[in-house]
Structures are given as C-alpha cells and as structure tokens.
C-alpha cells in the first residue's frame, strides 16, 4: 500500500509551507529572542483557516480531518515549532468549544475564535496535577446563576495574553468523573495571572500560572454538563498528541534539510564534509528516522479520523515515537553543524530547545508508555 495524500491535502500542505516560509521563517529567531507572541501573524493565518482547522463550518471553521491538521502543523513548525504549537493549542480550545459548547457559547465566541479575534488558552495542568490530571483540585462551586472557581493552573500557554481560558475544574467528587469544563473571559473578576515563566524554549508564547480566587463565572459558561470535563479532555488529547508530534516532525525536517545544504558547503581537510562517509551515514539515518516517524504519525491520524477503537494507542505511540525521533534528529543536525549549530543565527539550537518540551507535555512520553502498555495487558 502506498500512503498517498489526496490532491487537496497536497494543496493544503503546500499552502501552509509557503505561508510559513514567508510569514514565519524570517521572524522566528527574533520572536524567540525577544519573547514576542506573534498575534498579528496568527490572525493572518486565521484568515486562511488556521484558527479553526477542524471546527465546524457554521462557526467559521473548515471542518477538516486530523490528518489535514497534522499536515498544516508539520509545515508551520518547519519555520517555528513554538508558534505552530500555540496555534494547535488554540485549535484545541476552538474545537472543544464548538463541539461541546451550548448554542449560546458557540454563537457568542465561535466565529471570533476561528478568526482568532479571540485567542484561547487551555487550562488542565496544575502545580500538583500533571501526569495525574484526574486528581486536579481547582474547585468550582455553584452560587446562584454563577460558579465560583478557586485554584491554580500551571504552565498555561498564552496565559495573560489570551482572551479566553478553557478551565477544567472540580464540581463533583474525587476522580475524573467530578471534573467540568468552563470558559472564562480574561477580565473575569477573581482571575489573575502569574509571572511570565523563563524557559528553555517555546519563547514565542508566554507561559504563566492562571490563578482563580473565587473567580465568578456565569453558569452558562459551563461547557457540556457537569462532570463532562475530563471526558472532553481525554477526547482532545488524542488529537493534541498528533498535533504536538507534527510540530516536532516539521522542526526536525527543517533541521535535516538545512544540514544537507550545510555539509555540501562546509569544507574541512580539503573536502566537503558531505564527502565523509560518517556524514553520509548520519544523514541516511536521519532521513530514515524522520520518514518512519512521518508514516507513524499520518497512520495514527488516519486511524483517529476513522474513529478506530484503538486510535488512542496509535496516537500515544505516534506522540512518543515522533517527538523522540525528531529531537534526536535535530540534535544530530546540530552536531553536523559543529560550533555553528550552537549559534542562534543557524536556527537549529532554537528548534532543538523548542522540540525538547514536546517529549514532556501533552502527556509525557513515559505516560504514553503507560497508555500503550495498558492496551497490551488488559
């Protein structure tokens, strides 16, 4: 079987690639160095449909598949994995809101979310609840027409800059079944933000704590029913893992292609370093690793689109395998560049720093192993 993209998928991929080359690549180093959150560029991308890739058409989305989304994030991340990853987070919020939100919520926020006039952050992780997300302790207490939310969310991408916060909070008892999903506007009374975290990569997006101290949220901002929250979170994670894997793959692919150009130009001991077999074998391994990772990712996305029963396992395997392989390949690309690879001017150290966190977030690669082995041993 040849895994071939459709004509439309080829066009989608090419369009995203051209957009990334023109609108992201020239600025990515600057955004990283100056910790600039490129809202203008993201809105320009949203005009092309990047703000609601798999959101329904009635909310201004395009209703595309997860595989289509993977192709887009892979191409955007060639230029900037960090920004591409943020756009994927925004898409997750848009998708959750437009798939499970009430007509009122969809009407009020849907088309502004797909257009990225409003930007969304996703708030699940807490200081004490990371891999064990089901143990989250942010409380939501019904108070007349409102809920009062109290608790802290940790490592929230876009926090402080985003307009809407999709917050998972506990309305019921312990465990996953007691969790509900709420949509909070930025100026909600009782909502505040921590300092912008200093971090290794992902510098084109702010990361802050989201702090709720009796934050007053209208009851109509509950997404779905009480107790649905963790179910939505789990449904979002399969696609989220594919997106993050795609963001690793594109970054590593760019690093590989840049290495191929570099080794042909760089000369030592009287010959291009491309003429050393050590270089040739390294490139061969990098290409093989990335193509294998790509097959795994596209296959997992196709399985999720087909709603196959074991799609969750495939998404976990793709997330683990692709983010590990892509980090290793980028590290090899840095090695091939020698001292120059360590300089920010050559882009590769930025890609490496951005890709490192993909092995941690959206479920650590250790948690991916838990998910995979659970399906094997059940």
């Amino acid at each position, binding site marked *: 079987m040849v895994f071939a993209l459709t004509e*439309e998928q080829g*066009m989608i991929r*090419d369009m995203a690639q051209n957009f990334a080359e023109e609108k992201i690549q020239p600025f990515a180093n600057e955004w990283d160095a100056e910790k600039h959150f490129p809202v203008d560029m993201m809105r320009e991308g949203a005009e*092309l449909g*990047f703000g609601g890739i798999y959101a329904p058409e009635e909310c201004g989305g*395009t209703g595309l598949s997860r595989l289509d989304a993977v192709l887009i994030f892979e191409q955007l991340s060639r230029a900037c994995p960090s920004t591409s990853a943020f756009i994927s987070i925004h898409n997750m919020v848009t998708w959750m809101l437009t798939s499970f939100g009430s007509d009122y919520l969809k009407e009020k926020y849907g088309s502004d979310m797909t257009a990225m006039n409003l930007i969304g952050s996703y708030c699940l992780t807490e200081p004490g609840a990371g891999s064990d997300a089901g143990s989250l302790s942010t409380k939501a207490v019904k108070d007349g027409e409102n809920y009062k939310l109290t608790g802290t969310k940790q490592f929230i991408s876009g926090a402080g800059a985003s307009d809407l916060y999709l917050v998972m909070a506990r309305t019921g008892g312990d465990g996953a079944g007691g969790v509900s999903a709420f949509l909070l506007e930025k100026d909600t009374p009782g909502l505040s933000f921590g300092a912008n975290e200093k971090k290794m990569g992902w510098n084109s997006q702010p990361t802050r704590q989201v702090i709720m101290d009796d934050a007053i949220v209208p009851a109509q901002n509950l997404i779905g029913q009480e107790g649905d929250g963790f179910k939505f979170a789990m449904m979002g994670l399969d696609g989220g893992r594919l997106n993050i894997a795609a963001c690793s793959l594109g970054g590593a692919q760019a690093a590989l292609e840049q290495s191929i150009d570099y080794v042909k130009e760089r000369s030592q001991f009287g010959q291009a370093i491309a003429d050393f077999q050590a270089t040739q074998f390294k490139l061969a391994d990098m290409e093989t690793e990335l193509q294998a990772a790509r097959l795994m990712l596209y296959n997992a996305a196709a399985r999720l689109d087909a709603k196959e029963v074991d799609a969750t396992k495939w998404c976990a395997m793709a997330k683990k395998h692709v983010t590990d392989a892509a980090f290793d390949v980028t590290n090899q690309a840095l090695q091939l560049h020698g001292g120059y690879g360590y300089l920010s001017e050559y882009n590769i150290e930025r890609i490496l720093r951005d890709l490192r966190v993909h092995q941690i977030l959206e479920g650590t690669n250790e948690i991916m192993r838990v998910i995979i082995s659970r399906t094997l041993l059940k």
Partner: protein
Amino acid sequence: MKILVPVKRVVDYNVKIRVKPDQTGVDLANVKMSMNPFCEIAVEEAVRLQEAGTATEVIAVSIGPAQSQETIRTALAMGADRGILIQTDAEVEPLAIAKLLKGVVEAESPDLVILGKQAIDGDNNQTGQMLAALMGWPQGTFASEIKPEAGHIGVTREIDGGLQTIKLNLPAIVTTDLRLNEPRYASLPNIMKAKKKPIDEKTPEDFGVDVTPQIEIIKVAEPPVREAGVKVETVEELVDKLKNEAGVLS
C-alpha cells in the same frame, strides 16, 4: 467581462535546479512543482477584477501533463470559476501553446486574456505576444497596473527606463510583471471548494494543433562555477592586475 487565464506548471521557484547528467534538460524527478509565479499574479489580478465586479467569470487553462490539473486546481482555490486542461505529455513550445490558446479563446470568447509575462522554467517570454498576433488583438505586456474602463482597459507597462501607460481596446491580451500585485494564499475553505469546481479535459487534437517541437535542444548545461577571487596587498598591485591580467585598464 469574461477573463481567461493560462497557467503553467513549473519547477517550484525555491528548488535548486539540477541538470540531468546527459545534459538533455533539467532533472524533474522528485522535484516540487508549482504554478509559475507570473501566472499566479495573473490569476490574482483576474480574481481581483471579479471581486471588484468588473469580471463575471474567470477561467483557468493549462496545457501539459495530467498533473497540470493540480495547477488549475490551485487557480480554482484562489478564486477562478472553472478550468480547462489540454492534456499532453509532449514538450509544447510557445508557438504551439499560443495556437492551442487561440483555440480556447475562439471557443470561450473572453474579453481579456491575462498571462504571466514568462514562465520561470524556459524564460521564453513569447506566448502572450504570439497569442496577440494570432488573434490580431492588442497587447499590453509587462503590466504593473491594470485599470478597466468602459470598452477598453488601461495598462501601465514596465519598460526600460520607466513606465508606459497605454489604452487597449477589448478584447485584449495582457501579460503580468512582478509588481502588478501580491498573490493571495488559497484559504483552507477555498481549497475545499475548489474540489467541486469543474475542469474540462481536452487534447491538442481537439483544437487541430500539431504540437511537434520546432526547436532542437542541443545541450542544457549548468552555469560555470564562479571561481574564487584573489586578495591584493596594495593599490599598485591592483592596478597592475587590472592592466595586465584582467585587461580592463590600458
């Protein structure tokens, strides 16, 4: 106003061109192909004229192998209404292209044909002019601005040393220069809509055009590699080299 826009599938402008080892042409195996950038500008201009209410229909036509359908589909995603593919695997030269386009023009009766001034593969810069001659229509080549007015069209041309503004009676031929506009990206919804727009399939025989090449390519070679320069220590040495080695001073 009905507008016809011929579009060509060429090697993507970002690709590093490699010549085939036997020097018969450019290596196209596993190379990314895209719409010729000047053709993109032509599509963009036609779509803008349609958005402004001047044009009523935009038709994209391409001549080439089956994959040229992708190039037409790109034009449809940018906003063209329908496509025509004249499918042939032969290497079709500008004159044969112009003759085929004449056939399309006679069948479709457009008021305006907008073409790229040249394709970035062959750099021939002939097709638009040849089509104008075959049709006996006025032509405005190297356009940097197009202004439709009642019954005619104003075209600003980029010529050596400045800009020339001309007025063409319709129907007319316009070829696009780089500064005419900045083509849009096809949005995701428009890419999906393009899937449903019709593409007519034709062959050169349908138009009675013989596409047999009239030009024989003898050799295609890489440009010579630029040699490294030398550093001179003094002005005297520089003058000496300019006189005695480069021969540019006497």
